[in-house]
């Protein structure tokens, strides 16, 4: 059993003063430029981040700037989110800052950074609540995956056609409304019928575990924080049934 020894964060969410104090974000790097980059990700400053990224690129390899500055900053954001210090707006802004930095690094490399594998993400047809998907995209991006972002209100046929064309390691669907999540079993059945057997992560506010695991290919994605773990399993070749037993009850 885990005992709680530090009570300082318990009432954080009941406190209106949720501005993150400077000392709450941990140090990102001993290198001052990389630390500045990480700090601007944590603070969600997409414009301010450009100068330190450009400075770092004068002496460092672009992939090191990505991994040791930008991604480390996003990991810190992920921690602050998990602990209830950060809310959605901070995470969205941090993702913008990280992506701005990655774009500069990729321009320097003259090509897109090497990625571990493709993940197709979408928000269900009829649903414009893509907030969960925006965060999953940012975390997958930070985790080194190539995100094929189909955005919100995405028809079943588009998802199926994209999977056929792009051959991703995993697909995710987000639905905030009980009226839109019914698209997910349709997608899974069509993929199965086409002989494409890959993990489909069902997530979002309306989606319950019992329902997510009631149709083939689907694994319940309880929270955005699971995104990279699930993608790593898919990358390692784990099948959807094994992933379901590992991640779901």
């Amino acid at each position, binding site marked *: 059993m885990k005992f709680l020894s530090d009570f300082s964060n318990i009432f954080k969410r*009941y406190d209106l003063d*949720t501005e993150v104090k400077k000392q709450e974000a941990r140090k990102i790097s001993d290198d001052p430029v990389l630390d500045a980059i990480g700090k601007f990700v944590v603070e969600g400053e997409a414009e301010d981040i450009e100068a330190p990224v450009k400075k770092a690129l004068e002496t460092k390899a672009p992939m090191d700037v990505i991994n040791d500055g930008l991604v480390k900053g996003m990991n810190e954001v992920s921690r602050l989110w998990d602990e209830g210090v950060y*809310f*959605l*707006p901070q995470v969205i*802004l941090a993702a913008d800052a990280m992506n701005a930095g990655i774009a500069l690094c990729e321009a320097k490399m003259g090509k897109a950074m090497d990625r571990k594998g493709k993940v197709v993400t979408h928000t269900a047809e009829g649903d*414009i609540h893509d907030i969960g998907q925006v965060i999953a995209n940012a975390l997958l991006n930070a985790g080194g995956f190539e995100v094929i972002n189909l955005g919100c209100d995405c028809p079943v046929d588009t998802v199926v056609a994209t999977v056929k064309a792009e051959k991703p390691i995993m697909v995710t669907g987000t639905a905030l409304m009980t009226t839109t999540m019914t698209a997910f079993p349709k997608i899974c059945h069509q993929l199965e019928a086409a002989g494409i057997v890959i993990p489909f992560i069902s997530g979002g506010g309306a989606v*319950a575990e019992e329902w997510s695991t009631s149709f083939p290919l689907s694994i319940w994605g309880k929270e955005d924080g699971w995104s990279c773990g699930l993608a790593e399993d898919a990358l390692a070749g784990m099948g959807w049934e094994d992933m379901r037993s590992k991640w779901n009850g």
Partner: protein
Amino acid sequence: MNSKERVLAVLNHQKPDRMPCFTANSTVTYDQMEKVGAYWPEGHDQAEPMAKQAMAAYTILGFDVVRAPFDQMTEAEALGAKVKSGGEKGIPGAAEPPVYTIDDIPPKELPADYLSRARIPELLKAITIMKKELGDEVLIEAGIIGPFSIAAYLLGVTKTLKASLKAPDKLLPFLEISEKAGTALAHALIDAGADIIANEDMTASPDIIMPKSYHDLVYQFQAKQFEEINVPTILHICGDVGSIIEWEGKSGPDILSLEPATDLKLAREIVGPKPIFMGGADAAKVLFMKTPDEVKAACREQVEAGIQILAPGCAVAPGTPTENLIAMVEVAKSYTS
């Protein structure tokens, strides 16, 4: 007591014969549509089918109040937002792209023909039909959308969230016009026959924005809105609202509609005795997914924790089985005074 007397008793902080059951949100399901012979999408933009579907909450389910409309786009659409039909199965939603960017300045006043725009005239007619048909037996509830959620429809949710952190001042004129849009609609709905106004402000939930943003940006507009509405009011914000409930209470609604995620005992300590707590089984995870017995157990747990009006935690999912909704009414009937 009939339903009307029962709900009035609770609103006046007197003892009802039993606990009432009704909701701040939509009650329509496919099954009820079949039973009353009125369907979507007509129920979203034509007065007759809208009234029929709303009244099914009383005639089919036994809820103590009837309520329209069923989607959240009424005001935003009348302010120029593009709407996408939900077809036969869904509710109208916002279409991309949003009508404004954060650098735009929206009009300071509502257009002169605001109340005759988009679907507002049919909604007003539906309320009048409901009042005429059922007004002696049940109170008529009409829904408006809270200022932050309307603003988010005008600007796009993600853009609104970014602005809440980086440029809150730029949101203020959008919140101003959105508050006016909701309040003007509320006045027209009351004139058409509404006895209760429910204010849904989904996007102001701490699941989506910072509690500090609720306090700094939303609270003042909600307080102004409730001040200007002279019938009983309900405030519904989704999710665990423990971090903002003090300000929800202070904004002045008679009833707070709460999802089961909120700790009711702590909430009561914070807001004091006055606001009436409405809530019950989780709309997606229990009412939609589980059996009548599980619905009953979930409802009883919430009543024991302090719920005074039994209700689905949020909008009823249209695929929800009728027996689950009736099970909730049965629980309400079992709490007699």
